[in-house]
């Protein structure tokens, strides 16, 4: 790791000013950032420690059942919170599926959403890929086993967050704070496709801007939700494909459905037609299959990741079978 100066602001204003001054990067749990620094993927002059900021490490549920999670809440705290487990199981399960115990004890919700891609070309110092300002996505003609089957081009990363698909099906909003003040962005608009946004970034964060809170609206009615993740290695790993699902059930029928996949695209991948396919009787295997088909419609696998198409479909069926049993 190259040397840097560690700055430890006490207030959000100071933190944002430090970050906006340039040459600085934010540090929360450090589980992604330290890896980046060690691999020389970034070399900031200053690292701004956010852990001393007050009021960003709490989980609150208001009288109406709306959930607010501070960006500094650890994944362990999120996974273990009884209110989250009871009301938003998909979020608790997604948090519990991240990394190992050690990583969840340090890693934060904000960090999980803002972590950088795991693509090995990106992570290897001597392959200066598109994501690092190079001219080529090496996975396209190279080893593409872990890359995107949907939404790819010109970069074929997959977004590595497990928390993001869960928040996506909960229609959550992110509270951001930057030099220009505070703004709220739905999770649906936070992540950017490489073809739409700046290929060097995975989200809409402006320079100096950070995620401060996650806001999850209360779920009204009877919902069932869950997160299923398929990993190459069972101990701990990023998703090859994962599914976040939330179903509103009324009188034995699915009256509202939300489905989002992780591990298959550069952003959490939600498809309205797949969700519509699920409306109707609660346990309907043909609807699950149809949802899976819609979810991967238009998939363009690369040379080594064709397996993700049937995997994605199977994961959807698996998730829906569990939620409707």
């Amino acid at each position, binding site marked *: 790791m190259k040397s840097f100066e560690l700055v430890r602001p006490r207030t959000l204003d100071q933190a944002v000013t430090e970050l906006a001054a340039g040459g600085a990067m934010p540090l929360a749990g450090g589980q992604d950032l330290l890896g980046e620094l060690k691999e020389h993927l970034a070399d900031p002059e200053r690292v701004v420690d956010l852990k001393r900021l007050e009021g960003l490490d709490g989980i609150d549920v208001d009288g109406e059942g709306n959930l607010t999670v501070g960006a500094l809440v650890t994944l362990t705290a999120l996974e273990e919170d009884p209110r989250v487990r009871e009301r938003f199981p998909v979020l608790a399960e997604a948090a519990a599926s991240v990394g190992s115990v050690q990583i969840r004890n*340090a890693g934060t919700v904000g960090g999980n959403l803002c972590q950088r891609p795991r693509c090995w070309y990106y992570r290897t110092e001597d392959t200066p890929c598109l994501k690092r300002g190079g001219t080529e996505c090496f996975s396209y003609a190279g080893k593409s086993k872990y890359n995107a089957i949907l939404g790819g081009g010109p970069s074929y990363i997959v977004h590595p967050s497990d928390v993001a698909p869960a928040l996506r099906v909960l229609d959550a909003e992110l509270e951001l704070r930057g030099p220009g003040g505070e703004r709220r962005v739905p999770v649906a608009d936070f992540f950017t496709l490489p073809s739409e946004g700046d290929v060097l970034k995975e989200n809409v964060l402006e320079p100096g801007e950070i995620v401060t809170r996650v806001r999850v609206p209360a779920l009204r009615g009877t919902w069932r939700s869950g997160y299923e993740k398929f990993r190459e290695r069972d101990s701990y790993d990023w998703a090859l494909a994962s599914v976040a699902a939330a179903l509103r059930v009324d009188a034995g029928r699915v009256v509202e459905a939300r489905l989002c996949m992780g591990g298959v695209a550069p952003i959490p991948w939600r498809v309205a037609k797949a969700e519509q396919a699920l409306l109707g009787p609660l346990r309907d295997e043909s609807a699950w299959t149809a949802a899976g088909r819609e979810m991967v419609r238009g998939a363009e696998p690369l040379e080594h990741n064709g397996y993700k198409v049937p995997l994605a479909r199977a994961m959807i069926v698996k998730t829906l079978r569990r939620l409707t049993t």
Partner: protein
Amino acid sequence: MRRMRSLRLKVNGDEVEVGAPDHWTLLEVLRYRLGLIGSKQGCDKGDCGACTVLVDGAPVLSCLTLAALAEGREVTTIEGLMPAHVARGGAGADPVQDAFDRCGALQCGFCQPGMMLSARALLDRTPFPTREEIQQALAGNLCRCTGYTQIFQAVEQVAAEAAGIEPAEPTWATYREAGQQPSPRARGVKGEDA
């Protein structure tokens, strides 16, 4: 620009003051400033768990923790397990260390400091863990030698002995104490029985 700082850390119950560059990890300060080389620098990037230490009782990766961020918190390394056990009125090594030894839960030993700290943290929270809970708690600690079975058995041995009962599955320790050879099953060989 200031890139060095003086850190006040609490390690294994001792208050220490140590100077280190801002970018040094807790692992580097433990090993190269404080001489606590029990915490291993395996991958040094969050893959292996060999650098696991307890911070306020919770296992974290010291290779992914900046040393400055450990200020004001209680750090426990493998060197601190036995003193802590003795301070609590115990005799000798922590029961986890003892059981790992008796169960043959190690070969080269490189993973052990991290493994035993993860096991200690698990047992502090969950004194009678299921096999699945043990597997999940130790999932972040990679072992290249043992194949894990004896490690899981060692943790079960600690729990069983604390409760004064026999572990559900016989372990090496059980056999050794009875003066017998461990069965293939107790050695973790699948599909054969004693």
